[in-house]
């Protein structure tokens, strides 16, 4: 499950991924802890933004499992603060049910993926491994959000001048991959369906993530604003 790590966030002696949990529900943290027990090394947990930032900076885990909503602010505050000083710490957003704009905000702040809390233990372990290895993790819901965000207003060309076509559009292949993920396919199933390797699927997804994080596209923000209205 581990991969070459930079010195700042090193693997545990046993080779297990070092994971930090941020969630305001103690019950949920306990549940995740027991599900992940043995597969990863849980180095700490926090229930809110401020303690989370401090403790993550201390323990320097490889992957932080982060709730999108926290009492003291959004998960994106944690990502932004930690990333500023420790860019190698990776974040995987994990949450029950959120408004798309919150999820996109956490991703744009720098999280490497988003999964819903209905995910099974083994799937979560795979997802953590994937994030630790530098890949992106897209749940069906995130894939749907992203397709939606990039599709909306595609016909309205008002602000065409303001965006970089490279970053502001998904390729046909990326769309195909996202669609299959949104339909509930695993990366492996997507690969089989499209006759490509799992590695290629991962690179497509990572490229989508990059676009999502770097795009200055107007629609992305406008889309979020519209969503908030309805």
């Amino acid at each position: 499950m581990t991969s070459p790590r930079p010195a700042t966030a090193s693997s545990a002696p046993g080779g297990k991924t070092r994971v930090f949990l941020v969630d305001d529900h103690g019950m949920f943290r306990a549940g995740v802890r027991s599900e992940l027990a043995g597969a990863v090394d849980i180095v700490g947990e926090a229930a809110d933004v401020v303690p989370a930032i401090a403790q993550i900076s201390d323990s320097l885990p490889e992957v932080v499992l982060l709730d999108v909503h926290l009492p003291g602010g959004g998960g994106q505050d944690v990502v932004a603060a930690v990333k500023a000083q420790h860019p190698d710490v990776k974040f995987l957003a994990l949450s029950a049910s959120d408004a798309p704009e919150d999820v996109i905000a956490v991703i744009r702040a720098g999280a490497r993926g988003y999964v819903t809390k209905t995910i099974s233990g083994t799937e979560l372990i795979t997802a953590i491994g994937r994030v630790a290895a530098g890949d992106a993790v897209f749940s069906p819901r995130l894939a749907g959000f992203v397709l939606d965000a990039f599709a909306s207003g595609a016909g309205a060309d008002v602000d065409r001048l303001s965006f970089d076509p490279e970053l502001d559009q998904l390729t046909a292949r990326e769309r195909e991959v996202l669609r299959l993920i949104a339909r509930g396919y695993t990366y492996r199933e997507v690969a089989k369906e499209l006759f490509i390797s799992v590695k290629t699927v991962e690179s497509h997804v990572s490229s989508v993530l990059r676009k999502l994080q770097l795009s200055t596209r107007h629609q992305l923000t406008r889309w979020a604003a519209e969503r908030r209205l309805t």
Partner: protein
Amino acid sequence: MPETPEPDHQQAGQPDPGSSSHWTARLESHGVRVTRGPASGGPVRRARDDRLFGGVAAGLAKRTGFSVGLIRVIFIIAIVLSTGYLAMAYVLAWLLIPAEDADGNIGTKALADKRGIVLAAALASVLVVALVIASALNAPWVTSLAVPIIACAAGLVLIWRNAPEEELEYLRSLADPAGMTETAPRSRRVLRIVAAGVLLVIGLWLLLEGHDRFALLKPLAGVILLVGGIALAFGPWWLRIALEAAAERRARIRAEERAEMASRVHDSVLQTLALIQRRAGDQQQVVKLARAQERELRAWLFDGRPPGSMEGQAGTVADGVRLIQQEVEAQHGITVDAVTVGDCELDDDLSALLAAAREATVNAAKWSGADVVSVFAEVEPEAVSLFVRDRGRGFDPAAVPADRKGLAESIRARMARRGGSATVRSTPGQGTEVSLVMPRAAADRQPRRP
């Protein structure tokens, strides 16, 4: 109706003196009830949750503390040993013992059901025929079998006609596996026919066994003549009863239809009006609600398509998907992972798409065995696609019998009628994916943007 409190019948098949005295003690403590005559079944109640037929054994088990299995075995042994007469006791107990948390028993209601009593009496005339045949064939075993069977049938007629709706529902589901209804799978119907054939063959063999074929001819001819005579005498009466029963059933269906219509109007029009009142300030919402309701009413009145509960509540594709998710999650206790990309208002075509999607989701929830069903809907300018996927047991689409209506009628035909398409991909052991695509009407193609 006998005045004896029912459980005495049960004691015959359930020889346990301890529980009997316990029972009388309880009876005294419930003295008030005993004085209520035949309506009181004493403290034993027919169980609701553990029942196989009427819940008598389960109720007794609850009452005495013995296991249901034990009591059922005792019942069956007693019924066999008594050549069926104890089954009468069971049916009687069913009639007389009230169900748990029910007020009265079925018997009291049955007393007031004149038509039911006539029907039961008609069955008694069948008994007469059976007895005549028995004596003609000189076969006393027919008598000993016919009496309990017909008495039970008469009792069951009364139960069927007078049981409360909840119990009827259960009885119907009991009768269903036997292939009584059209919707029962073909395999069950085949099973029923085979079973009937086996019984007939065994019966014939029993008749002919030990007889010289010709020796039997005369009594058989006599029997046929007798039956003919009886049929002539009683036939019109039986026929009338059957016809009246059918007419009554039609009347009941009409009443049910009216009730359903009332509930549909309530669910759709009245509900929308209430919503509009509450959101009077939000003009856009009100217009949306009114338009959706208008469309639905028109569809109902002029196209004869009854409003699905969905159309009253969902104005757009995303709303509809969310509604399917909530409904299926609530009704089937599984997780529905629903993702929608884009959105647009519902028209008739898209409502059909959603109705097909709901059927597919319900199918997945019911049959796949998976805990999670993924639903993905994407609204594009030219078409709306919808995928329902599970990782359950899957099936071989080619092996689905042609009479399975869910897939063929509710999904494929529904999509085809509106110019859409449905494909099913399923691999046994790996799950199923239903893909639905519905082209969008030209007028609706503008993306929904404020």
